């Protein structure tokens, strides 16, 4: 039975291959059935593996097939691991992935690149499953790079535009910076432990003597965190994610909200025992996450593009997850990954539905009053908004509250940052909702033609909406009388049989903290809603009152410009110098053209002897013969 689990990643690969090679011949309905079908099948198999792993000893199933690499003292077996962490993540990837595939059938139906789109999307699922289920760091890294590739391909999906390929390139290059960190981290771990198999690595960490391993672990985990920053869009490598919205909206939902961008958090959870022993790294993670959470949320306050708002919201939410990880709450961080996958995917899909209804209009300032036109989209997005702002009883409430509580235990300043970020979150989400669904329609022509999306799009919305409300109950924190069930469920993966990984003390005014953050969040949500419900007048007046602040936020703190000035500009100048001097003058000039010129000169001289007259040649032969005779018989 375990051998069939190999089908989980291989089915989407098969789908990608078939659709990629035969896409145009198959026709749209076949492509749609095939593309959605393989992911749905993979979901079914994952569910089976998930249940089987739950009842297995150690809650862990490992399928090994063959030795992948064997050089010197490096042995890397090829295998899949199903433990609570990876199986749950694989369920998210295939489950939400299948829903978004279904949604894409409706969303992309009119597009020329329908088959190409599904080939990329299936390929993405394959690589993501490699990343999640891989039993070794190299396999994880293959998936890591593969999802980056698919992300690049899908961001640049509309390749005939100017901005989409540029955005894809930006994402790809920014991720390369992080990937270098992952590689260095992997090599550091291999140099010290002599293995790259995750299970062996975690087992050996337990026997590590503190004075020897501390430095190595801190260095390796920091490097891995750099990689996580790149993939999961944290300061300073977050800049690619907002631009990544150039891709089709379902891609933003699947890759740039629900699954791929959480790969960094997943990797840290996967290697949790390592990070647990590196307190410096954990503190760094907590602060980077916290600052990102607030920073991105403030940018989200003023964006006009509906997808840009959601993109900054994603960066901000990822910051929360890292803050949770850094505070030692690996299960809390991953819990937020899990809940966020539901409601953020839903928000993006809802936004896609709105965009489609408005004929590809993404500007919030040109929407309005769509509540009656798009009832299903409206109600599902409302639930998602309540979930993300942390309305009591919704999923985001439980996961975010647990993170904020842990942040408070780590450092009260982190909690304050987190609550401020949460206030911004409520504000920009209600601003988005009010501008989209309330008020007067600001673009009457588009409004007249707006209509609800087909069932392939609304069904995923409904399923995700149910999830957004309910999944929080998997991990009701102890402060609210729950058991934080998801934490116990994930514990075998996160501690890996090591006792010290469990944070012992849990004290603090949990209820009070939750009350403060929730009331503030609700207040700011109401503030945002009331400011924008009746139109743009209030907002414009406020923007005029703080022109400097407004301009800074609107221009995203000028980070892109700063990077352009400090890094890209000098790099480009260096490149131009190497091109003009190193390449044009030295390589092309001295290396290639100079020998060519000399050869040509010599040829011109020698060709004077080529008269074309047979008498001259005969004379040459005679002289040559005489010379040879003279040499031999002198």
């Amino acid at each position, binding site marked *: 039975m375990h051998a069939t689990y190999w089908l989980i990643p291989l089915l989407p690969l098969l789908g990608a291959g078939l659709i990629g090679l035969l896409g145009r011949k198959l026709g749209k309905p076949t492509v749609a059935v095939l593309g959605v079908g393989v992911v749905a099948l993979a979901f079914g198999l994952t569910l089976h593996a998930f249940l089987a792993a739950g009842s297995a000893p150690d809650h862990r199933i490992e399928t090994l097939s063959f030795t992948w690499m064997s050089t010197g003292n490096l042995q890397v077996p090829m295998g899949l691991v199903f433990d609570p962490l990876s199986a749950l993540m694989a369920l998210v990837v295939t489950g939400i992935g299948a829903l978004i595939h279904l949604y894409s059938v409706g969303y992309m139906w009119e597009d020329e690149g329908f088959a190409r789109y599904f080939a990329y999307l299936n390929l993405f699922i394959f690589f993501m499953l490699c990343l999640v289920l891989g039993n070794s760091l190299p396999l994880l890294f293959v998936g890591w790079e593969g999802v980056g590739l698919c992300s690049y391909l899908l961001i640049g999906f509309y390749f005939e535009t100017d901005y989409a390929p540029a955005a894809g390139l930006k994402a790809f290059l920014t991720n390369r910076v992080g990937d270098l960190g992952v590689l260095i981290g992997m090599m550091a771990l291999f140099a010290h432990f002599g293995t790259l198999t995750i299970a062996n690595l975690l087992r050996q960490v337990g026997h590590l003597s503190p004075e020897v391993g501390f430095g190595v672990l801190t260095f390796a985990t920091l490097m891995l965190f750099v990689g996580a920053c790149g993939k999961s869009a944290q300061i300073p490598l977050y800049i690619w994610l907002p631009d990544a919205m150039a891709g089709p909206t379902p891609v933003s939902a699947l890759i740039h909200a629900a699954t791929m961008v959480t790969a960094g958090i997943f990797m840290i959870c996967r290697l949790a025992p390592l990070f647990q022993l590196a307190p410096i790294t954990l503190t760094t993670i907590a602060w980077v996450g916290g600052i990102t959470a607030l920073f991105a949320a403030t940018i989200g306050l003023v964006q006009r593009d509906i997808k840009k708002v959601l993109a900054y919201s994603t960066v901000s939410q990822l910051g929360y997850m890292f803050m949770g990880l850094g505070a030692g709450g690996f299960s809390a961080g991953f819990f937020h990954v899990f809940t966020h996958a539901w409601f953020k995917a839903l928000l993006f899909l809802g936004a896609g539905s709105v965009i489609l209804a408005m004929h590809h209009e993404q500007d919030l300032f040109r929407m309005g009053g769509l509540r009656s036109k798009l009832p299903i989209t409206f109600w599902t997005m409302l639930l998602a908004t309540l979930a993300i702002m942390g309305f009591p009883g919704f999923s985001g409430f439980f996961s975010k509250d647990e993170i904020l509580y842990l942040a408070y235990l780590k450092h009260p300043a982190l909690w304050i940052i987190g609550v401020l970020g949460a206030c911004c979150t409520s504000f920009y989400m209600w601003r988005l909702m009010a501008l989209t669904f309330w008020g007067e329609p600001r673009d009457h022509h588009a409004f007249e033609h707006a209509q609800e999306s087909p069932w392939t799009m609304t069904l995923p919305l409904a399923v995700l909406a149910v999830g957004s409300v309910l999944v929080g109950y998997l991990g009701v924190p102890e402060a609210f009388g729950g058991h934080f069930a998801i934490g116990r469920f994930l514990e075998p993966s996160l501690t890996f049989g090591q006792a010290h990984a469990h944070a012992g003390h849990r004290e603090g005014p949990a209820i009070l903290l939750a009350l403060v953050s929730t009331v503030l969040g609700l207040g700011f949500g109401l503030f945002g809603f009331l400011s924008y419900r009746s139109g743009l007048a209030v907002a414009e007046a406020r923007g005029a009152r703080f022109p400097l602040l407004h301009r800074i936020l609107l221009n995203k703190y000028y980070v892109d410009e700063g990077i352009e000035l400090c890094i890209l500009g000098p790099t480009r100048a260096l490149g131009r110098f190497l091109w003009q001097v190193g390449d044009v003058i030295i390589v092309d000039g001295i290396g290639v053209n100079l020998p060519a010129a000399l050869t040509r000169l010599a040829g011109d001289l020698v060709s004077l002897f080529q008269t*074309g007259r047979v*008498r001259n040649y005969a004379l040459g032969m005679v002289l040559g013969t005489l010379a040879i005779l003279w040499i031999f018989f002198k």
Partner: protein
Amino acid sequence: MNCALVHGSLQGYILVALLLFVIGLATVLIRRSLLIQFMGIELMLNAANVALLAFARYRGGDVQGTVFYLFIIAVAACEAAVGLALVVALFRLRHTTDSDRADALRQ
């Protein structure tokens, strides 16, 4: 030793052969008419024949020399046939038999 030549000495024959060869060579190098150059070539070939036969007789009627002489006669006949055909072809194309004007390889 009855290997001495019947009439005259070996040196005389070699001298005649040498003279013939040099005259032929000079003809080829100096004259521009292809037909005359051809004659020069024939002279050189026959100079070689004279030398071969002289040596054959000198070595007491060595068959190898005689056979070589026959081969050269045959080859010279073939060469003359091909060469004259080329000269005719050139004349048709250029209306000349001047070898200095057949310098298309220069271009």
